[in-house]
């Protein structure tokens, strides 16, 4: 998400960086560019207007013109404003109540409520050590109840059985009773998708809300939605005391305007982002980090968290140890590193969080990164343990065998060996020249050719 907005804003920002002076005139141009970028990113028109107005005012004040680097100052203002409209700080779920705490999911058809309900259940269970009960009150869409039941089994969370013939309020009431007697911490109620203009259905969800009295009423919205997103959000917020928003399907190339607009329009915080199809793909929303990411400043904090979450600490220590001793970096280690990388969502996911990387075209990133990494892993997998430890063994006939075994070409095998050789040299240097810092300095001067990342 945000890639294309990010690219456009970066172009604007880049133009500014070079400018020693900001005149009334190029300010005007810049703001027009920013306005276009936001509109193309599906940010709601009223929000765009206000955004531009704020920037104009702050920029016109002493803030920009008085500084030595007005371009930088303006970028800071844009960043601040982006953060502000998205709600300053992360807002977590607030489940403080006499258990069971009830969470009600609401949204349009196809926004991603059921999947999100399962993701949330998994997160509460695994990270917050809560005992969770799921229930589906969607008696309309064929097999919606079955869908939640399957997801519940998958993540090991109990699902209260319901049937299409029952009344949603009855289902929710019975589930709440069950959650009480079973001493569940949290009950998540999934509901049918409904149009905000469907009076009858909106009445139903109001009744549902009254029946279970949730501490969190979460509005689930598709990140690909256009200008109508704010109308929908407003209508749901008026019908229900919405406490937070979850933006789903942000793993595509959606422009992310919803994320920028919804907080401003209904005044409720975005709590999570859905970032993939798997049940683990739910991330807390940090406005400041997202703002930095949009402006190509990277989300280093998020990157660190990703790494901590998925890297095997012991293996990493072992590897670091190996490096420090300056020996024994072999193909097994390379393979291990690549696997860790894949666990974190691949090169593309990591690179997206690095500063200045948003300008890389998506296609190029995918090609250099994940595809090639997969190929390299396949090649290493086709080697014998002996070959992995002593790559020098691999000569012509072995190369042929490895290429055949991994479904690649001999050239690919050669490339891997060459790259590995260079890496090994680098590792040795690192051992000598003051560790990572030295290596980074070195890389800046002449980046290693053909590194996959």
């Amino acid at each position: 998400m945000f890639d294309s907005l990010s690219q456009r804003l970066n172009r604007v920002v880049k133009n500014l960086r070079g400018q020693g002076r900001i005149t009334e005139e190029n300010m005007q141009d810049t703001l027009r560019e920013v306005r276009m970028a936001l509109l193309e990113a599906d940010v709601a028109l009223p929000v765009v207007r206000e955004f531009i107005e704020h920037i104009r005012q702050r920029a016109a004040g002493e803030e920009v013109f008085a500084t030595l680097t007005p371009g930088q100052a303006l970028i800071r203002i844009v960043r601040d404003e982006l953060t502000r409209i998205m709600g300053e700080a992360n807002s977590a779920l607030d489940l403080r109540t006499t258990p069971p705490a009830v969470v009600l999911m609401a949204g349009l058809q196809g926004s991603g409520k059921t999947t999100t309900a399962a993701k949330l259940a998994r997160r509460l269970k695994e990270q917050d050590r809560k005992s969770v009960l799921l229930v589906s009150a969607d008696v309309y869409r064929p097999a919606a109840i079955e869908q939640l039941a399957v997801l519940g089994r998958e993540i090991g969370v109990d699902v209260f059985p319901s049937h299409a013939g029952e009344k949603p309020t009855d289902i929710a009431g019975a589930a709440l009773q069950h959650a009480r007697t079973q001493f569940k911490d949290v009950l998540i109620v999934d509901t049918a998708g409904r149009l905000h203009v469907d009076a009858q259905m909106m009445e139903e969800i109001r009744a549902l809300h009254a029946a279970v009295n949730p501490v969190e009423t979460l509005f689930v919205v598709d990140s690909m939605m256009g200008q109508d997103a704010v109308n929908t959000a407003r209508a749901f917020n008026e019908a229900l005391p919405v406490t937070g928003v979850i933006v789903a399907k942000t793993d595509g190339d959606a422009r992310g305007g919803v994320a920028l607009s919804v907080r401003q329009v209904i005044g409720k915080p975005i709590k999570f982002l859905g970032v993939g199809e798997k049940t683990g793909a739910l991330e807390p929303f940090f406005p400041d980090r997202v703002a930095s990411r949009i402006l190509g400043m990277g989300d280093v904090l998020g990157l660190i968290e990703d790494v901590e979450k998925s890297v095997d600490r012991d293996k990493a220590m072992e590897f670091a140890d190996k490096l420090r001793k300056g020996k024994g970096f072999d193909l097994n280690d390379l393979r291990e590193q690549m696997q860790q990388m894949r666990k974190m969502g691949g090169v593309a996911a990591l690179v997206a969080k690095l500063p200045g990387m948003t300008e890389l075209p998506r296609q190029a990133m995918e090609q250099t990164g994940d595809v090639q990494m997969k190929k390299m892993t396949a090649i290493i997998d086709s080697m014998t343990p002996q070959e992995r430890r002593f790559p020098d063994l691999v000569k012509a006939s072995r190369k042929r065998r490895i290429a055949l075994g991994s479904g690649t070409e001999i050239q690919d095998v050669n490339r891997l060996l060459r790259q590995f050789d260079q890496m090994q040299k680098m590792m040795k240097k690192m051992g000598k020249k003051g560790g990572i810092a030295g290596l980074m300095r070195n890389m800046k001067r002449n980046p290693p050719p053909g590194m996959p990342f």
Partner: protein
Amino acid sequence: MFGLEKREQDSSSDVPEKKRGLVRSLREGLRRTRESLLGGLTSLIPGGRPIDSATLDTVEECLLVADVGMEATEAIIGRLRERHRQQRIDDGDALYAALREEMVALLAPVARPLVVPADRRAPFVLLMVGVNGAGKTTTIGKLARQFRAQGLSVVLAAGDTFRAAAVEQLRIWGERLDVPVIAQATGADAASVIYDALAAATARGADVLIADTAGRLHTRENLMEELKKIRRVLGKLDPEAPHETMIVLDATTGQNGLAQAEQFRKAVGVSGIALTKMDGTAKGGIVFAIARRLGIPLRYVGVGEQSDDLRVFDAGEFVDALLDRGAGR
């Protein structure tokens, strides 16, 4: 050109009666919130008053709010400005007329209804694709009912083997409509399910096979590869299959819709669009951007939850519904 399209459409199975209905449902949907696309303009441009550049700016914003997108909006507004300069638009009514004309001109070339040819020997294969939650399975249900009503025999293929209970959802549709559903378990290879389904449909001498697929974001390369495989495998049984690859597009989608259409077309050669969920307050303006950039035929518009709420797309009626000026011209 527009007239020509119109004639073509009339000669097809489409009846004028139905089109009237489309306007009505679309307008009803839009009126529910009293927020038609240019609703705000009525107060801004009272009939006879002369218009200026600021009025055109307002029109521009209205188009942007309808998700028409920068490129298509600029094209439309550019033409209006041109006409304004040439003194051919001098009051609000003329502006409406000109705007309508420009908008219809963008959509008319893509308003080409889906026709299942009568003289076919093998089943007509309809492959449905789209992102998650666009409404593929529901649209399939509606299409199946319509084909049945036209006296065609239908077979459904449960090609969404990924999402939990998707197979079940299609099966329920099959039961409701009394249409056979060819399915395997969740997790099965989608291409093989659909291949089997085509074999079964051929054996039964069915007229139409509608293949469901799992919703996928168009940026997921491996999933797009899976779609390509489905196409390849279908081609083994019938080199011409699928005869229609239809992308299901949620009308609430913003500018991302263009990327969706573009990527799906690149991967599997989309030949038609079904625009769903037009019964909310969304305007579906993204179809203008898609029509302008890609020119993919627009087949259907979904305006409600009932199965006959899937209407054949008509450019004039669609624009009228957006402008809320009715068909009485």
